[in-house]
Structures are given as structure tokens and as C-alpha cells.
């Protein structure tokens, strides 16, 4: 489910600029995002990062709320398994992703709109790459059915 592959379809609306929220854990992924910055790696401007201490602290309701209020996509970034500053918060996030998928199904939201990724503090490149992929995926999906603006 973390693959979130874009299908072959091209986006219908050319002007569509998605809004994607990224929850990044302080210890690895937020640091990876900083490294993307220091390394001047360019990625799409559609990402809004929310810093959390651990991917394990993000309540599924927060993700569901964001998507049902019109965010076009949400990406959760945590430490690689084994690297978690709090032992295994990231694994908790991984388990919750399954629950989130089920809830999204109920809401009629495509599962690709939520993605979980491991990004380490040294993976600035990966951060940029993942954000680009996510943006491409969402662009190909089109705007969220709940988009209000």
C-alpha cells in the first residue's frame, strides 16, 4: 500500500495543484526534509509539512479529518523500522495505516491518497523523490472528492 503507484491515466484538469499534508517525525523524516533543503533538492511545492515527535503519535482521526475536509493527499513519514527514537512508534503507525485504509474505503476516498513512507535523516534525496511521486500520484487522481475550495 505504500507503493501508491500512479495509474496510466493522465490528469483531466491541467491546472490542478494538489494540497498534500506530510506528517514528519522529528528524528528522522523531518531531518531528512531538512537535508533535502540543505542539499537544495527541488521537489513540488504542493507539500505542507507538519512536524510531530513520532509517526506513532498521529491519530488516525487526524488523517481522516484532513482527507475528509479536502486535503488531496496525506503522507506519513517515519523512521525506518529499527531506527525509531521511541523504539517502535513507527511500527504502530504502520499498523494504523491498515485501519486508515478501511476508513478511507468507507468514505469513498482512493487509498492512494494516504501513503506511509520511511525516510531517514540522511535520505534527503529519498524525501524529495517520495514527495515528487506523491504529488504525481495525486495529480493523476485529480482533486479530492471532499475538496471545498
Amino acid at each position, binding site marked *: 500500500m505504500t507503493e501508491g503507484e500512479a495509474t496510466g491515466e493522465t490528469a483531466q484538469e491541467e491546472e490542478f495543484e494538489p*494540497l498534500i*499534508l506530510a506528517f514528519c517525525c*522529528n*528524528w*528522522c523524516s*523531518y*531531518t531528512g*526534509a*531538512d*537535508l*533535502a*533543503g*540543505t*542539499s*537544495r*533538492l*527541488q*521537489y513540488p*511545492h504542493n*507539500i*505542507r*509539512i*507538519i*512536524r*510531530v*515527535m*513520532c509517526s*506513532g*503519535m*498521529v*491519530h*488516525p482521526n*487526524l488523517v481522516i*479529518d*484532513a482527507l475528509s*475536509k*479536502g*486535503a488531496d493527499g496525506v503522507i506519513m513519514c517515519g*523512521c*525506518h523500522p*529499527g*531506527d525509531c*527514537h*521511541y*523504539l*517502535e*512508534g513507527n511500527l*504502530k*503507525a504502520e499498523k*494504523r495505516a491498515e485501519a486508515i485504509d478501511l476508513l478511507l474505503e468507507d468514505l469513498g476516498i482512493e487509498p492512494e491518497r494516504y501513503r506511509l513512507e520511511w525516510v*531517514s*535523516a*540522511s*535520505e*534527503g*534525496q*529519498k524525501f*524529495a523523490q517520495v514527495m515528487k511521486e506523491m504529488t504525481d500520484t495525486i495529480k493523476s487522481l485529480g482533486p479530492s472528492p471532499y475538496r*471545498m*475550495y
Partner: protein
Amino acid sequence: MSDDKVGSVLVVGGGISGMQSSLDLADSGFKVYLIDKLPSIGGVMSQLDKTFPTNDCAMCIMAPKLVGTGRHHNIDVISNTEIESIEGNAGNFNVKLVRRPRRINEEKCTGCGVCGGKCPVEAIDEYNWGLTRRGATFIRYPQSVPLKFMIDKEKCIGCGICQEECKAEAVEYDQEEQKFDLNVGSIILSPGYSMFDPSLKTEYGYGLYKNVVSSMEFERFLSATGPFAGTVMRPSDGDIPEKVAFLQCVGSRDSQAVSEYCSSVCCMFAMKEAIIAQEHSEGLKSHIFFMDLRAFGKEFDDYYTRAQDEHKIKFTRCRVAEVREVPETNNLIIKYVEDGEVKEEEFNMVVLSTGFRPPEKVKEFSKTLGIDLNKYDFCSTGVFSPLETSREGVYVSGVFNGPKDIPDTVAQASGAAAKASSIISTERGKMITPKEYPPERDVLGEEARIGVFICHCGINIGGVVNVPDVVEYAKSLPNVEHSEHNLYTCSEDTQKGIKEKIVEHNLNRVIVASCTPRTHEPLFRSTTKEGGLNPYLFEMANIRDQCSWVHMHDAENATKKAKDLVRMAVAKSRLLEPLYKLELKVFQKGLVIGGGLSGMTSALEMARQGFEVHLVERKKELGGNLRNIHHVLSEKGEDPQKMLNEIIEKVKNNDKIKLHLETTVKSIEGFMGNFTTKLSDDTEIEHGVVIVATGGQEYKPSEYLYGQDDRVLTQMDLEGKLAKDEIKPNSVIMIQCVGSRIEERPYCSRICCADAIKNALKIKEKNPDAQIIVLYKDIRSYGFREDYYREAADKGVRFIRYDDQNKPEVAKEGEDLVVTIRDPILGEQIAVKPEYVVLSAATLPQPDNEELAKMLKIPLSKDKFFLEAHMKLRPVDFATEGVFLCGLAHSPKFIDESISQACGAVSRACTILSDEIMELEPTISEVIDANCDGCAYCIDPCPFNALTLIEYMRNKNVKKTVERNEAACKGCGVCMATCPKKGIVVKGFKMEQLGAMVDAALEVA
């Protein structure tokens, strides 16, 4: 004498070792001066991509220590500095130092990096081992501490561009060398090491063939911040290699290369690089050529097994004769001898596992310091004094104290910190200065009045983002009372300005939109506090790393995003609350469980630090396994039994040590700083820390006729008999790995190879004509122990290898013991009739470890030894704070290693014991009793066992709720995300606060 002692320590060298020593000391009440000859600290670990055996990202795990060191108000990081001379004695040294000019004013430089980007000079980048170029104005690596640029005078052409570009006016070309003095109580040396120059081994073609690289260079290839951004490429043509060869022992275990010792880490290092290279480029095949595979550390043999079975890395036991290049393809042909046959194989790339050498200019260094070196020019230490140099008051840690890996270095660094502080323990707290703040304004009940400070960061932000436009936008947001832009918000003058604006506009929230909170939040929080506000009323928006730097060519969207980020910060800021650090009273006493060498060392060291300590030993006598050790491999010829008796006397005569013999621990309740323990004799002890030093035991073999024939002994049996002169063997066969490295016990017992060599040498000493054969799988005489391996071989001890398919057999024929072995050279079975068979039996964990583990809520490894908080950087800590670990309870190890760890555990413990009051971060969880219905969903997921379900009477009804232990909670928030009722939240990251950011993001600017 105690009158003129000084409560400060000089730490020389800012690698992982120096940082660990500094942090421990500073957290225990001592002033630290940390000097490094380079412009930034971090040492070699900062250049590593990953670390074995967990494959953790090196920078990820090291960065918190790096930043922590740089920020600690009791640590002065002094870069570009070396020692000129030392006068004085232990407790009071006067050190003369010399500092190379940085040519950039550290106070003014904000680390924005514009100067480096504009510098037209191309110089060799040492951080990437010369594989890339940097400017003459440069920073060692992006996360450098201090984050200050430097002008390399050798390379600078004086064009003046950096001076023109620097908006902070930090460039000072005319800075001069600076000499200064420091007065310190003790000194820790952790200068690190240099690498063997592989071009000296001409047969491998390093420097001649482009695709032959050193292991350190290859590490940079693997790194995302390396020359090829993490893609493994051949230097000759940028092709992705399909076959890579790793050659071990380049400049180690080599009499021609002057480094006869073993460098201890290269086997693991090569395996790690081979595994990571495969992760980076699928299908890559690695082949490691080695002599003995020395995977002797905790869970290292598992790694070796995985490398073979999962990653299909090929291992060949040999010494490679030569490497030659195929000129057309730049491929390399490796010539080696396997099973008596000369073979050749072609590879795309060759990695040379280069060994450790002493630090550069080590002779002058040792002369300046007045310390002795060993024969290989590393620092000379003793088996029972592994942290002491030959000069009193000067201690040593890290690779300069012998080749070692990171966990051993970290344990030693903590140990050295304990030694360095115990001699000045009376001066604890005297040289450190608490920061003074104005009284805090009560803002409860006030509507939010927010000040937003937006940073240009020179041109880093302002060059892309329209900062004045963002300021105007911020002013339009509800509750924003003031907004302004600053050239550098982090500069001294802006800090002053923020404090003034807080007062002028009666602000009760502060937001800075600039760079990353990871580096700058503490600074701005401090500024907020200096402005009379609670520091947790501060919030940050990262418009540099997330806007201007990553959308450099899209000013419009970068500006729009900056506005969004500011709006999100404002939304959260409205909901911020003042938070207060929790204070807990600490029982300034220790409990040490286990009275062996590690336990006794811990107890003595803690007593020297000035703390009362309870030492609990289940047996009648102190000493543990050391009671069975009668000689050691050492130039200094220490007598273990004499040392043991001295230590026991010291323990018994120390009035700070309360000895509980023939006693066990019945129960332990409480948490860091506040434990209550009941002993088997019903004594109750209150203490702040626990050190687990319960040791291990020798395996009693069931194989090879042990217990059935008196002539079959373990190494420990043999050592006892030799010491008492009970036997004088004429012929002995030793069998290694009895009970170790087998299916049910896959780990290496680490000490048995050197033990066998030690006893073999002892037999040879008594009877030079004795015939001794050692049957082994790998001889793991790592570090300087390699000398004794060679000595034994020189004295005629025969080492014959066996593998799992051809294990030796021991049988009895009439009165004779017969050992059948397969001679690997002849390929035939041979039968030998020795006088004795000696088994190198495994070191086992204590069988009742599980019981203690449950009591302390600490984990065991799969081999049933205790499992530390982090394999690499927290080797003597447990994840449960306030509980520490040392000695064989951690894993098998030698005397010197146990002593280092025991001192290390004390050093870590002192960070808690040193103050009567302990401060805890307030950003932890909080139970909202009104919402909590006691469903207890949150309890099991908590990784720190910080939550308990409780019941109490409310309105004559039983109310269930959850209680949070504030000392155990780390604020990870797993509970918050699990709770269906908003019954538990993390302060500073509450659902409403995060939700407000989400909502704000979804509004359109």
C-alpha cells in the same frame, strides 16, 4: 590538596568518544572544554553512512549527540585548537593551547552558506576523502557543529567575494592565530586515529588503478551525502559495478606494513558495506577475501550468518597475493590461493579494508602530554587500568586506546568521564553556571497576541521568498499583533529586538519563520524566556528548508507556501500553553547488583564520585569469575588474584559502600531517581539508579567426554590447575567454540580465542617442548591480542582449522584419549593422542536473567544477555531510564572491557545522581481524566511502560482512569494516537494543536 582542585575537564578530540565524555561530564556538574583540531566536531562517525550490526544510519543516531554537545551550556566547543603544553598535576592542570584562525567571526556567522557557494576556488574535500571539491570558504559537512564556515588560507586566493556576499559581515581575513590557557582538573584524550595508507601495499594497486578504493572511500560512495549521492559507481567510468571484492587486513595483521595488530572492526565494516551496497544496487555481488572472520561482538555472528545466507555474500579464506587491472575495462583481477590452489577472479571494483593507525603526529602529541605509548604508538594502558594513561589525571578513550568499534568506544568514553570526574568530585557543580531569566509573565486567560518574526537568512530565504509580502500577510492573520522581517533572526541584535517587541506589544506568543526547529528552536525558546514569556509559547515555521531552498526557481509558489506555513504556525500558536519542566527529587544513592569485577568496580567508582552505594552479591564472597583467572595477556604482567584481593579490600573498607553478601534482590519498584528495592533479607533501600552487573558463567560442556574423563578440561579448569602447578602437560589439544557459534547458541564468546592462546603460552612457559594443537573456526585475537597469537605460533603452537562439517571427535581407546581431526591441508583424518583435551567453553548468560529483567522491566537479547537501549550509542544504558548495564551481563568480554563498561555505567548513572532535583521535559503525555473511561487501550502500546490503569472513588462510584508516570514517559504519543476518547494527549502536540495546523493548511491563502 583538595583546596586547589578545579571542577572542569579538558576533552581532546570531538569524535563520538569526545562528545560522549563531554555530555556525561557536563550533565554531571562539570565544566567541559572540548577541543578539536578540525573546524567542526563529529569525527569519523560523521563520515559513516551506516553502522553495524543494526545498519542504523550513522548521522541519524549521532545528530542528537552532536547538537546536544554544541548547545550544552556547560560545554565550550573550541574548534581548530591543539595543545601546546601542559603543566600541573592531577586535579589542577594548566594547559596552553593554540587556535588556528577560522577567518570567519564565529559570533557573526549564521552558517547560511552563501560564502561557500560563491567561492570560486576548488579545493580537495577531506570530508569526502578527496572524492569531491569544496570551496576555500567551506564547512566540513552540512550538519557541522559549530555551524560556522571557515576560510582555508592555503587555498584562498583573496578575491574578496565571500566578504562581499556575507550579509552578516562575518568574514575577517586578518584573524590571527590565538594562544590561550585553560585551567582544568583532569584531561581526557580521544584524538581518534588515522587510516593506513593503502598505496603502501603496492601489490593491490591503490592509487594506480582507479577502481581500487579504500573502505572509507567506499563508505562515502554509499552515503546519500557522498560524492555520488548514494549511488555505487566505479570511479573510472561511473558504471554501476556488478561484482565487488573486499580485501581484508590491508595494513593490519601484517608484519610488512608495521601494523601487526588486528584493527578489530574491518571484518564487520566490510560485511556492512557489502550488504548496504546490495541495498543500493540490486543484483550487486560481493566477495570478501579474509584470513579470520572476526565477528566477535554482540550479535555480530548473526550478522555474519545473514551476510552469507540472506545476502549471499561470498567469503573466501585467504590472503590475496595481488590485484592487477585489465586495461581495456578497468576491471580488476584478483589472484589468491584457496585450498592450495592458485585462483584468479575478475571484479569491477575492489575495496581495501584499510586498518587503523595511531593519530597523526602521535609522537609529538604524547611528548607534549607526557604520556607513554605502546609499541604500536597507541596509548599505553593496563588490563586493570584501561582508562588511565601513564600520567595521573590524564585519561584515554576511543581508538587511540586501541582499535575498537563504536559501542566499545562509547562505553569507554563514559568510563573515562567517570575517571576524570571522580578525582575532582568535590568540585562538582562549582564551575558550572545556571542561566538567569526574568520572572515569567502569567498569560493564562489572555487572548493570543502573536508576534511573527520572518527571517531573510541573508539571501537564503529573501533571495527566493518575498519576505516583506509574507510579513504583510502575517499581519492580516487573526491575533497577530506584530510582524517584521529580519536579515538574520538568529543574530544577537535581532534576539535583543525580539525581547523588546515582546514587551512593547505585550506579546504572549512568538513565532519565528526561518530555518529548522531542530537547530534553532532552543535558541528562540531561550529568547522567548528572556523576554519574560514561558518558552513553550514559541513556535517555528521552516520557510528556508521547506520553501526557498527546495523551490529555488519558483518564487511565486515558494512565497505562497511560506504564507501557508506561517498561517499554520499561527493556528497552532493560538493554542499553545505555558508548560513547565517537571521536577523530581532524586535519591542520590546507587544500587549495584552483582559483586564480580564489574559490580565491584561500579560500586567503588560510584563511591569515589561521592555517592552512597549498595552492592548486592548472592554468593558468600565477592569476586565472581575473576576468582578463576590467574594470569592475563599483558606486557605489564598484572597478577589478577593480587588485583582481585586489592579491589575486595577497597570495597570492604569503603564506608560509602554498603555490602550485602549472600543476598538477592526480591523486588524493585519505582523509576529513575526514585527506586525502592527490597532485598532477600527484607532490607529496604531507596536509591536513584540501578547498575546491573550480574555477570555470566562458563558453559559446562556435555560434549567431548567432559565430565567423563578427568583429562578433559575447560580453559578455566586448565588455568586453575596451571596456576596451582597441579599439572605440567606434555601434549594438549584445545578445541575452540565449544558451545559457541553453534545452532542453539549462535553467538561468539569473544574471550576464548585469547584465553586458549594465553593458556597455551603458559604451558609453553612451563614446558617449552609441550606439543599444543588448537582446533579453531576463526582465531579472533582482535586488537593487540594478535601479538600473542603470533607469539604462540612462533613458539610452535599449531593452529588447525575445522568447520562445522568436520568437527573434531574425542574418544577413549583403552587408557588413551584420542582426538580425530581432519587435516585441512592433507584433507585426511588424523588421530592424535594428547595428554589433555582442553575445551574453550562458551560464556553463558546467568540462567535467572529473566527474573531480574521482569523486575526492572528491561529486555533480554535473543541470546538471553541483557539488551541495552541502543547497540551502538547507548551500550550501557537501558531504555528504562535510571537502569544501567555492564560486564558479562551485557555480553562476553575481557577484564579491561568490563572495567571500562563498569566505569561507563557509573558515569551515566552520575548524570542522574549529581543533582538533588531532576528536570524532565514537559512535552510528555497527560491524562484527561474527564475523557478517560479506563478502557486501557493505551497501556500495552506504551513502549516505556509509563502507563498504569488505576481505580479511585468518585461520587461514590469506582472511576477507572490511567495514570502516567512522568519520569518514564518520553512523549512519543503512541497513547494519544491509540485513545478513542481524547483521554490522553501529548503536551505541545495535542490533537487540537495538530488539527488546527491541518485546518489552517486547508484554508487558501
